[in-house]
């Protein structure tokens, strides 16, 4: 793999960067929050992003995508992450979208992905449960045989964009105990199904999420996505890919948080001089910079590893997530400290990055989780 942007990728980055500056300043996120917007993102902007080719950028042309890869998707996500754009990439393109694509179910892919690529359908992955933390095998939601189909019962939490999703990919147990990797099956459930209840949740970072309750939701046998009882592997692959996307978004966010901080260091005057002239702050700023550069390399490598189907993809995903988790939290925490008192106010943007850094850290596994995964994958 080459860890450098091609000319085409540079162009995508420039286009996305300009778009974000003009149409998606962080003030938009603030307004969506302050007005309690029922959707929580802009459907019009989502449609525009689809028309620019970004929503379908990594999907094959056969399902209406651009046929590019995660290297390109990562470039777009990084730019969107700079201003915390709330549009449903993570849920629709990455989690549920990748599960659909990787399932090999051509019928369901053809039914949903072209609409996804056009910005017309929102998808969500209903996976997380109250006791699952980061363990994808911890599934207590049950799908029990009922006639020719199944009845699904259980509760999923923090289902990203679940409040507006047109369909859900649900992880349910068809066999085995509550933490067994074997015996999990993914199902595709459309919105409005009888027994499905959506309750919007409020998260600290404003990322849109919902509680999704299944009270004996009936589905046909053909609702299963991928092989019966073998959903864990599919889930793990989709979550790994989503993690790469999340890391790219985090990379954009941490760079922006750091840029705000460095600007503050140059302009804030105390003791008659810019505070950025103090060596105590210079060295800490240099440390943040070092971590950002390392995170960038790890994200580029993980994205390219998806595209090249590298054998050590899982390790590179863990590397990227561990680095991004630590680096984003560091950049945000140092940012608030260096802004001083005003960094604690809601009026300043740096706090938005601190909240997002924490939320992103605790999504798909924190750094300690990924170090443990790296160790397991390395045989110690």
């Amino acid at each position, binding site marked *: 793999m*080459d*860890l*450098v942007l091609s000319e085409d990728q540079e162009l995508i980055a420039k286009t996305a960067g300009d778009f974000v500056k003009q149409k998606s300043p962080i003030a938009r996120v603030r307004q969506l929050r302050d007005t309690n917007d029922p959707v929580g993102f802009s459907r019009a902007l989502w449609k525009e992003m689809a028309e620019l080719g970004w929503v379908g950028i990594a999907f094959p042309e056969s399902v209406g995508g651009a046929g590019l890869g995660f290297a390109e998707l990562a470039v777009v996500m990084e730019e969107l992450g700079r201003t915390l754009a709330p549009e449903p990439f993570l849920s629709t393109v990455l989690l549920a979208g990748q599960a659909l694509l990787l399932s090999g179910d051509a019928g369901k892919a053809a039914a949903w992905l072209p609409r996804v690529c056009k910005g017309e359908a929102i998808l969500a992955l209903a996976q997380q449960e109250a006791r699952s933390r980061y363990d994808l095998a911890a599934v207590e939601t049950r799908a029990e045989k009922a006639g020719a189909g199944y009845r699904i019962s259980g509760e999923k939490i923090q289902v990203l964009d679940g409040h507006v999703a047109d369909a859900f990919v649900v992880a349910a147990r068809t066999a085995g105990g509550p933490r067994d990797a074997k015996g999990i099956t993914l199902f595709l459930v459309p919105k409005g199904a009888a027994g499905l209840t959506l309750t919007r949740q409020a998260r600290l970072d404003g990322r849109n999420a919902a509680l999704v309750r299944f009270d004996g939701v009936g589905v046909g046998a053909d609702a299963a996505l991928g092989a019966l009882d073998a959903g864990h592997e599919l889930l793990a692959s989709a979550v790994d890919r989503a993690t790469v996307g999340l890391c790219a978004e985090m990379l954009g966010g941490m760079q922006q948080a750091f840029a705000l901080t*460095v600007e503050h*260091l*140059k302009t804030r005057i105390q003791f008659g*001089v*810019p505070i*950025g*002239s103090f*060596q105590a*702050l*210079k*060295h800490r*700023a*240099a*440390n943040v*910079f*070092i971590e950002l*550069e*390392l*995170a*960038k*390399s*790890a994200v*580029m*490598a993980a994205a390219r590893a998806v595209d090249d189907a590298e054998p050590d993809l899982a390790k590179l995903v*863990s*590397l990227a997530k*561990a*680095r991004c988790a630590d680096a984003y939290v560091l950049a945000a925490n140092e940012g608030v400290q260096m802004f001083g008192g005003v960094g604690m106010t809601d009026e300043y943007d740096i706090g938005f990055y601190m909240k997002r850094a924490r939320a992103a850290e605790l999504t798909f596994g924190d750094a*300690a989780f990924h*170090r*443990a995964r*790296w*160790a*397991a994958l*390395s*045989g*110690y």
Partner: protein
Amino acid sequence: MSDLESFRSETRAWLEANCPPALRGKGGSELEGVWGGRKWDWSGLPDQKRWLERCAERGFSAPTWPRAYGGGGLAPEQAKVLAEEMRRLKAPPPLIGFGLTMIGPTLLAFGNEEQKQEHLPRITRGEIRWCQGYSEPGAGSDLAGLQTRATGDGDHYVINGTKVWTSYANYADWIFALVRTDPNAKKQEGITFLLIDMDTPGVSVRPIKLISGSSPFCETHFENVRVPKKNVVHKVNAGWTVAKALLGHERTMVAEAFGSGGGAGGKRGTLGERAKHHLGSENGRLADPVFRDQLAQLEMDTRAFGLTMQRAKDAARAGHQPGAESSIFKVYGTEVNMRRQELLVRIAGPQGLGWEGPGFDPEELATTRDWLRSRGNSIEGGTSEVQRNVIAKRVLGLPD
């Protein structure tokens, strides 16, 4: 077949025909590097000698230098192919040292034709070993405060002063040194970059014993040493420009040496295997979960650093100017190596406490000495603090 592919097959055939079989498979840490020079002891190293002679003849001891100066004249992508083919055979580099990594590139950028003709071919053949005369007892991080005086006397300079931390000066034939030619100018503006033959009368060298017990560094004294003025590189009083460019080469070299050791645990295999040896394993996993976490952190830091160095190289090959990422190499590469050495000693536990003699195996003793030596990594070649100042000023643009 593309040009690059035919270059690869030619190179592969040449290596097969010319790399002495006894050296193949030993390109890792098994062999001591060949530094060359007039004082180099070749006895017992006939294969290394032959390997260097053949490589030098083909230009492969300095693959990217121009052919006119003993190099291979290779383009960067060809040099990458050569490195890949060398790795395939696990062949050791024919020659290492500061001639190839520091003064050579500096002469290519700043030397005049006569200097290039005189020095570069002798470096590529391993005939002359170089050392670096920068720091002084009174000029460490504040390098521009150096006091070694060069006083004009006809077509010579007369040098008086002391250089310290001159690596392997006791084995070197020539030294490239910073000397003060104008004591009245602003401190950076009175410095000249000068090449000095160590055999000149008045040069004396005293090795310095370190806390690790080894003596890789020396103190080098100059007492009325007469050096021809033609040995000035670039212009008189413009040595600071040359010095800074060379420091860039030095920091890259240091980073590559320390940062790329990911996974290496010596004869006991990977770091994970070495940790299992000392700490035990349960169901195939390292028994101690705290060390497991620390080991993973270290390996991941090393990998991320390796990827960052790769990113810089890939960007350079794509024709980009060196980016901000290269400013982190020295500080991070050395600090990650220091953490590795700390971890290895702690993994060894009480067996990491040996100095010499019975009860400790050679690898345990080496671990202890390597850890002690590594404490200098964040000091030599620009301290971590100076590096962070450089990042803050040059990359982040923070005010003085």
